């Protein structure tokens, strides 16, 4: 892999995290990126601890399965937060931007990297993106399984057919189960 970029790993990692944190409201973003305590800031510290190993692998072998656990750390959190699916899994696209930031920061950056290296790196990033998508889907399915299990564990509610969706729809208290472009498929 290209040495010039590899040497700038920690700087790239910083820029990458900054861009990820910028997907949160600014009031939260600084807190997430500045508070290093794992327990006082579970989101930020999870991202922080995962970024290094992921980049290491990306610049090395480039096999997302090796660092699946770390990608999972990030995606699992974003999967239940206030993001659209595309935004939740956007982290590796943000990494591309972070790498380009790094390349344009110094004039020599663009000269020292061969186009084929860049293309190869970007392909690897794409591979990581696809892995992130798989993990995202796994997490979302997990949420729905948990939600469903939770739902059927509540016999007292179902005993009256009270919270049965058809009852609620009839009563006008929920809308139809269906696809809504804005929110995705949801039982609202």
């Amino acid at each position, binding site marked *: 892999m290209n040495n010039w970029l590899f040497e700038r790993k920690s700087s790239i990692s910083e820029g990458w995290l900054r861009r990820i944190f910028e997907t949160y409201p*600014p*009031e*939260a*973003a*600084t*807190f997430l990126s500045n*508070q*290093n*305590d*794992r*327990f*006082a800031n579970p989101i930020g*510290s999870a991202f922080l601890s995962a970024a290094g190993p992921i980049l290491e692998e990306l610049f090395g072998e480039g096999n997302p399965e090796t660092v699946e656990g770390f990608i999972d750390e990030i995606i699992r959190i974003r999967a239940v937060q206030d993001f659209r699916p595309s935004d939740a899994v956007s982290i590796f696209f943000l990494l591309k931007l972070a790498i380009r930031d790094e390349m344009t920061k110094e004039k020599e950056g663009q000269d020292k990297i061969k186009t084929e290296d860049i293309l190869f790196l970007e392909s690897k990033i794409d591979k990581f993106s696809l892995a992130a998508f798989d993990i995202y889907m796994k997490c979302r399915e997990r949420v729905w399984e948990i939600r469903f299990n939770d739902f059927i564990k509540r016999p007292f509610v179902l005993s009256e057919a009270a919270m049965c969706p058809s009852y609620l729809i009839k009563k006008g208290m929920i809308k139809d189960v269906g696809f809504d472009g804005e929110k995705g498929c949801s039982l609202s």
Partner: protein
Amino acid sequence: MGVMLSLIAVLVIVLVPLAGSQVSGLQYVFGVFFPYAGFAVLLAGFVFKVLNWAKSPVPFRIPTTAGQEFSLPWIKQAKLDNPSTTTGVIGRMAFEILAFRSLFRNTKAELRSGNLIYGPAKWLWLGALAFHWAFFIIAVRHLRLFVQPIPGWVEFLDKIDSIMQIGTPPVYITDVLLIGGVTFLLLRRLLIPRVRYISLPADYFPLFLILAIGTTGILMRFFIRTDIVAVKSLLVGLATFHPFIPKNVGAIFFIHATLVSVLMAYFPFSKLMHLGGIFLSPTRNLANNNRMVRHVNPWSYPVKVHTYDEYEDEFRDLMKGAGIPVERE
């Protein structure tokens, strides 16, 4: 927006006496009328506010318990953080009011090179404590200017405060702490996005006001000197209700006095009333002896309940069928 408005408001409060005190006759307004009015509003407003709070009862005993409760004899109680007696509550309140115990709790653990290190994140606590104590000592120290002869303990306080003996006249430690503290609290509001997010004009205004008070005070002592003897005779006059305006009192004094008057008048209508509120805060000033001593709710009223008799009437057959004893067959 809140920042600019507050800043402008304070600048206006500075400019008015600056210009006004040049006009003869108006000095009386800034040097006598405003201070009296401000003090009166402070006193009346403070008392009104506290009485108004006290008018609302405390229906439930709801202390926030911050440690082990009083329990079995062999279990060690956290007597200060979870007091069950009045003495304990007084101790808890003293720590809270004098040392900002709850803010001090802001600990955090940091993950440095893989090892967990518990370090304090106590900047807010330190800044707030420095600011409040400095403010209090400065206020007390000012007694020196209001009474004649000066009481020994005020002299002593003055001496301690200027113990560093830097410069002439010597710099007060509390002046440095006050300006430092206010600046810290202000910068925090401006620079930390989540604190900026929650800040209102009412948060910036008192900070600017106090900063202006501190600055004018320091200016008066070190840079724009004014006749201290004249100032003292004015203030003693105020304190003894024989107000008069001596000659040779500079505009800087009138600015300082106006700012303080505004602060006093603003105090009871603002969040600054936390000074009074803390004493009445039900999550702090009550003992956690709920199960030991019954707390009476003054507005308690009878409520409709589903009585056992109604219950048995509804379910008697089911109960009998299941072999559950009933009152009436």
